[in-house]
C-alpha cells in the first residue's frame, strides 16, 4: 500500500515537473535572449487556458483541437506584446520588467473581470482514462503530459541546433552585439523567441488545466516555479530546465506528503535561495 502511494506520487511529481520544465524552457529562452524574466507569460498562461476552455465549451471543439487553439492564442499574445511594447523598452531593462509585470497583472484582472474568479472545470477525454501499471492507477492525462513534454524537449533541441533561425537564436543568446554584427536579423530572432515562449506556456496551460481547473489566479504559481526552474537549471539551458523542472516537481509532491502540505508552494523559494547562495549560475549554466 505504501509503495503504491510512493509510485503515484512519483508519477504526479514527474507530470508536475514536466509542466514546470515547459514553462521554464519558454522563460529561459526569452530571458537569455532579451535579458528579461518575462512575467507576462503568467498572464498568457491564464488566457490560453481560457481559450482552450471556451473552444471546448462554446465551439464544441474536442480537447485535442483545443490545444492548438491555446497555442495560437499564446503565440499571438506573446508576439503582440513583444512587437507593441518590449521593443520600445529594450534600452531600459527595468522598464521592460515592470511592463512585463504590469501585463501579467492586466491579463489576470481582465480574466477576473470577464469570467469571474470562479474555477471552471475543463473537460478532457484523457482525464478519466485510467491506466494501470502493475496495479498502479495513472490518469492518461499524466501520460500525455509526459509524452508531450519529452517530444517537445527533443523538438526544441533539434530546432535550435539544426535550423538556421534556431542557430541564430542561440548565437543571440550568447552575444547580442556580435550576432547582430554577423548579419543575424535580430527582429526575426526576437519574434521567433517570443512565439516559442508563448507556445510553450500555452501548451503547459492546456495540458495541466484538465487536472486542476481554469481560474484567473492559475497563472501565478506556474510562473514562479518556471522562473525558479530557469535559475536552478542555468540561464539559457534546455536540459537544465528539464532537470530542474523534474527536481522541483518531485520535491514538491514528496515534500507535500512527508514535510508539509501547506508549504508545498514554498519549497521552490527555498530552492531559489539555496541556488543563489551555492550555485548562482545554476546546474547547467556557464559562469
Amino acid at each position, binding site marked *: 500500500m505504501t509503495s503504491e502511494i510512493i509510485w503515484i506520487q512519483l508519477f504526479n511529481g514527474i507530470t508536475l515537473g514536466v509542466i514546470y520544465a515547459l514553462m521554464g524552457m519558454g522563460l529561459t529562452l526569452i530571458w537569455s535572449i532579451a535579458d528579461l524574466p518575462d512575467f507576462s507569460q503568467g498572464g498568457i498562461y491564464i488566457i490560453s487556458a481560457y481559450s482552450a476552455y471556451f473552444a471546448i465549451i462554446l465551439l464544441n471543439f474536442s480537447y485535442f483541437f483545443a490545444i492548438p487553439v491555446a497555442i495560437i492564442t499564446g503565440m499571438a499574445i506573446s508576439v503582440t506584446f513583444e512587437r507593441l511594447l518590449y521593443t520600445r523598452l529594450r534600452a*531600459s531593462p527595468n522598464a521592460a520588467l515592470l*511592463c512585463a509585470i504590469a501585463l501579467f497583472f492586466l491579463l489576470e484582472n481582465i480574466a477576473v473581470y470577464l469570467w469571474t474568479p470562479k474555477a471552471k472545470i475543463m473537460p478532457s477525454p484523457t482525464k478519466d482514462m485510467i491506466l494501470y501499471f502493475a496495479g498502479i492507477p495513472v490518469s492518461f492525462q499524466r501520460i500525455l503530459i509526459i509524452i508531450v513534454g519529452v517530444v517537445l524537449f527533443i523538438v526544441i533541441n533539434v530546432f535550435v541546433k539544426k535550423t538556421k533561425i534556431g542557430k541564430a537564436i542561440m548565437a543571440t543568446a550568447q552575444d547580442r552585439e556580435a550576432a547582430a554584427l554577423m548579419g543575424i536579423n535580430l527582429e526575426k530572432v526576437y519574434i521567433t523567441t517570443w512565439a516559442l515562449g508563448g507556445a510553450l506556456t500555452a501548451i503547459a496551460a492546456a495540458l495541466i488545466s484538465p487536472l486542476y481547473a481554469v481560474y484567473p489566479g492559475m497563472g501565478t504559481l506556474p510562473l514562479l516555479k518556471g*522562473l525558479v526552474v530557469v535559475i536552478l537549471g542555468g540561464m539559457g539551458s534546455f536540459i537544465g530546465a528539464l532537470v530542474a523542472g523534474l527536481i522541483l516537481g518531485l520535491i514538491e509532491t514528496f515534500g507535500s506528503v512527508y514535510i508539509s502540505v501547506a508549504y508545498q508552494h514554498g519549497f*521552490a523559494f527555498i530552492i531559489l535561495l539555496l541556488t*543563489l547562495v551555492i550555485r*548562482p549560475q545554476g546546474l547547467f549554466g556557464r559562469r
Partner: protein
Amino acid sequence: MKTIEDRIKTVPPTKLIPLIIFAILMIIVPVFASGYILFVAVLALLYASLAASYDLLFGYTGQLSFCHGAFYGIGAYTAAILTVRFGFTFWEALIPTCLLVGVLATIIGYPALRLRGAYFAVTTFFLAHFIYLILLNEVELTGGPLGFRGINPPEPIGFISFDSLSTYYYLVVVFFIIVVLFLYTLVNSNLGLILISIREDEVLAESMGINTAVYKLLAFVIGAVIAGLAGAFFAHFFRLLHPTTFSWLLSEMVVIITLVGGAGTLIGPIFGAGIVTFLLEFLRFAPELRYVGWAAALIVILIFEPKGLIGLLERVRAQIKKKG
C-alpha cells in the same frame, strides 16, 4: 559651473512655499474633514511612507523589488503579535519589529543582490508570495485566514492618548515627516550620490571602487525597515490584520504609486500615494476594473512618460516657458 553638491545645498526659498502650504494643509485636515476622509488620509500617509522608502531602492539605486508590501505585512504582524501575545507596549514593539524586518531583508537581499540583472526582482517577487503563504498558514501565530484581532491603539505618551482618529492621524503625520526628512537627508548625502551612481552605471560604479552589493543591500534594508515600521503603525490603526491585505497586490500598488508620481524624486511617490489612495477609494464600486485600469495606466506611463507625474509637470513647464 555649479557642482551637484552646490545645487543641493542652495534650495531656493520659492521651492519651500508649496511644502509649507502642504504642511499646513496636513495639520488642519482633521479640523474640517469627516471621519472617512481622515481614515483615508491616514492610509494615504502610510502608503506615502511606503512609496518614499521604496523610491530609495528603485528610484535612486535603480533596483526593482516586488516585496515592499510583504515587509509592510511582516512589520504589521510582528508588532501586533508582540503587543497582543507577549505584552509589549506599542513603542517597545517597534524595535524588535525593525530588527526582524532588517535581518530578513538582509538574508533575502544578500544572495540576490550580489548578482546583477533580474535575479533580485524574481527573488523578491517570490518572497512576497512566500510571506503571504506564511501569514496564511501559521494559524497559531497569525490567526491565518480568520485574521488577527484584539490589537489595541498605542499606549498614551504623557497626556496624549491615541484612541481617537484625529490624534492617530497626527501620530502618523509625525511618523511620515520623520521618514521623509530621514530619506531626504539620506539621498542628499554622499550615500545618496553613491546610490545614484549605481543606478546610472553599476559596472562603472564598481570599477570606481564602490562595493555595489553592499550599498544596494543597504538601500534595500533601510527601505524594508521603514516599510516594516509603517506596517506597525497600520496594525495599530486598523486593528484587524488579514493576509490578503498584504498579498502581492499591495507590493504592485507600491510600485505603481512610485511610478505614477515619478521615481527617483522622493516627492513624486509621496504625491503619487495621495492620488492613488484617494482614486482607489473613489473607484471602490468597480474593484476588478480598478486593477485593470491601474495595470493599463502603468504600461502607458512606462511607454510615454517613464518619469511619472513629476516628469509630466516638468515637460508642461518647459512647454510654457518656450511659448512665453
